[in-house]
């Protein structure tokens, strides 16, 4: 696994070397965030939402705070669907109403701001995700953390239940759960 990663890194390094740096910097976030972007997308398959609205209403992956993914995540979800709903990425400012999103990646350093955002979507079917250390304690559902350079997850099933979300046992199996 590590070897493969190394290959990729090497390949990326070669690419960086070969192409103008500004073009590449625009489209690709660091590897860690590419993985996290993929994870966000993959949550759509392992979590069940109670209702997704009617017709062609979009399935929204929201990013609150600083956007670490750039256009990479837009490209990733472009054309993908969740059930009948097209996936879109929506970026929120702290003042925006975030209740209409389905997955919300919260990337704010200030714990108070984070709590404010969580309070805004409390009891709503929104899968809250964040890198922040006290996120689970603050009432968030999934937290990314790093272990031996791998991106891992911590899940709080009680919070998911509170948000009326059904998290697949498979996901729970590979994640660290906080009861």
């Amino acid at each position, binding site marked *: 696994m590590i070897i493969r990663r190394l290959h990729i890194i090497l390949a990326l390094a070669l690419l960086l070397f070969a192409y103008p740096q500004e073009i590449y910097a625009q489209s690709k976030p660091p590897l860690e965030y590419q993985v996290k972007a993929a994870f966000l997308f993959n949550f759509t398959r392992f979590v069940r939402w109670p209702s997704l609205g009617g017709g062609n209403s979009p399935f929204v992956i929201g990013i609150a705070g600083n956007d670490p993914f750039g256009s990479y995540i837009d490209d990733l979800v472009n054309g993908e669907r969740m059930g009948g709903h097209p996936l879109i990425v929506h970026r929120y400012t702290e003042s925006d109403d975030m209740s209409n999103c389905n997955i919300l990646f919260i990337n704010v350093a200030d714990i108070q701001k984070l709590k404010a955002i969580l309070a805004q979507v409390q009891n709503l079917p929104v899968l809250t995700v964040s890198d922040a250390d006290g996120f689970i304690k603050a009432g968030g559902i999934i937290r990314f953390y790093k272990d031996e350079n*791998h991106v891992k997850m911590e899940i709080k099933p009680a919070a998911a239940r509170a948000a009326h979300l059904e998290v697949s046992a498979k996901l729970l199996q590979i*994640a660290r759960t906080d009861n």
Partner: protein
Amino acid sequence: MINKSSIQAKIMSAILLTCTIVLLLLCSAFILFEYLSYKKSVKDNVSTLARVIAGNSSAALAFESYSDAREILNGLKNNPHIESACLYDASGHVFAVYPDTISRKKIPPTPQTDGYKFSDNALVGFEPVRQEASRLGTMYIRSNLDQMYAQLNNLLLTSGCLLVGLLLVTYLLSVLMQRPITRPIRAFKDGVRRISEEHDYSVRITQTSQDELGSLTDAFNHMLTQIELQNETIGKLAAIVESSNDPIISITLEGIITSWNDAAERTFGYAADEIIGKSVFNIVPDERRHEEAEILARLQRGESVEHLETQRLTKNNRLLDILLTISPVKDQYGKIIGASKISRDITEKKQEERRKNDFIAMVSHELKTPLTSTRSYVQILLAEARKRNSDAFIINALTRTDVQTKKMTHMINDFLNLARLEEGKLQLILRVFELQTLVEEIVGDAQFLTKNHKISFLNCDHIKVKADREKIGQVLMNLLTNAIKYSPKGGEITVACAIDNQKAIISVRDQGVGIKQADQQKLFERFYRVENNELRTISGFGIGLYLVAEILRYHGSKIQVESQEGFGSTFYFSLDIAQE
């Protein structure tokens, strides 16, 4: 090998072979069916396992949790038949392998088409990893078939044991089952062997079954009865042949002796076993060989030979006179295959005849001497009486005496010739002479014997023949006396000569009583006399015409007769004309 073995062995091998083939086919079909269902069950088993693992590993793949993927794959440890497995991510790269220690070379570098197939004694499969309808990767799984082969081996072993066991049972059953079939056959065979060894045809075979063999036994017993009856008949016939006083033998067409009765043993001195299978020429004297060859030739034409007088040679080289009757023997299709020969030993009879002939010859000879001197004295007396012109009565009496003595001389000559003939001592003295003078002489003598008949001759001049003059004279004399005798009312008797085809034909015609057709054939036999009331009174010994026929036969000629009853007869014969 099968053809030589007994019926028992044949039946048993038929039963065993049939059962073996049926059982083998059954076992093969069963094993094939089991093999196929094992394969299917292995495939089902492995694909189910793969589906479960693939399902479980979707999250690990989606969230790149290598350790989880490994853990999930390690769940396969409970299935020792799974040799290796691996997970590929969505882009087809190997993500996790099982077992940990396996070399990457043993794992296909990229996933192949989904599905399962058997290769290299293993089941190899690729199972898609999905979550919520989206494909996250592929799972590879490889299972060995050791378990299946172990099961198949067990099955083979069980089938083999079963097969051996069943064949053993079949063998025991076949031993029991062939018995009711072979027991009567063997009883039949034993019966037949007893009959053929002991030649006892009164034995009957006990019928033990009502099937085809029963009817065969019936038919065989019936046949035995027939053989017994035929043996009885043959025995009777053989007894007749054996007890016959005449030797009866049978020969093949090549002259090989095939049977020889007791009388033949007694007569010819050879025992049956030493002569059967040898040539009949063993008992034929050399001088009769041509005769035997001719007999064989006649037999092949289907002719029989009756009353042939011939000679045979005994073992002690004694010559026997025998009378032989030979008839062709035909087979059931009417083809001549040999001959039966019934001989009668006539040696004694022949000797008796010879003694009689010797006696006749002696008597005739002894009678002839006084008769010759009597006749000479009568002729002297007659000449003297004529010279002295004696009394007519004396001359007449002496003339009659002369004629009677002459007649008597002829008769004695006939007897002498007969005796010589019988002994085979008749010898011809062939000379050339004028027919005219002989005919004149004999007719003159004959005319002396009768006054009622007028004897004439014609056309005999200038014919010279080569023959025994004295014996031909006797022939003519006998024919003339015969003509006189059988023409009691008188009439003309004509001796005529003619030439036909280099032969002189001499005929004697009378106007007498004639001869019946039936008598014409036997006329020339010895001592034969025509049975006729009218002719009762006519004297004679019945040797005249026999002598005529024999003398002419010695000349290579033949006496012939044409006659019509009541209108007279004509006797004629031919003689060789003398070459100038």
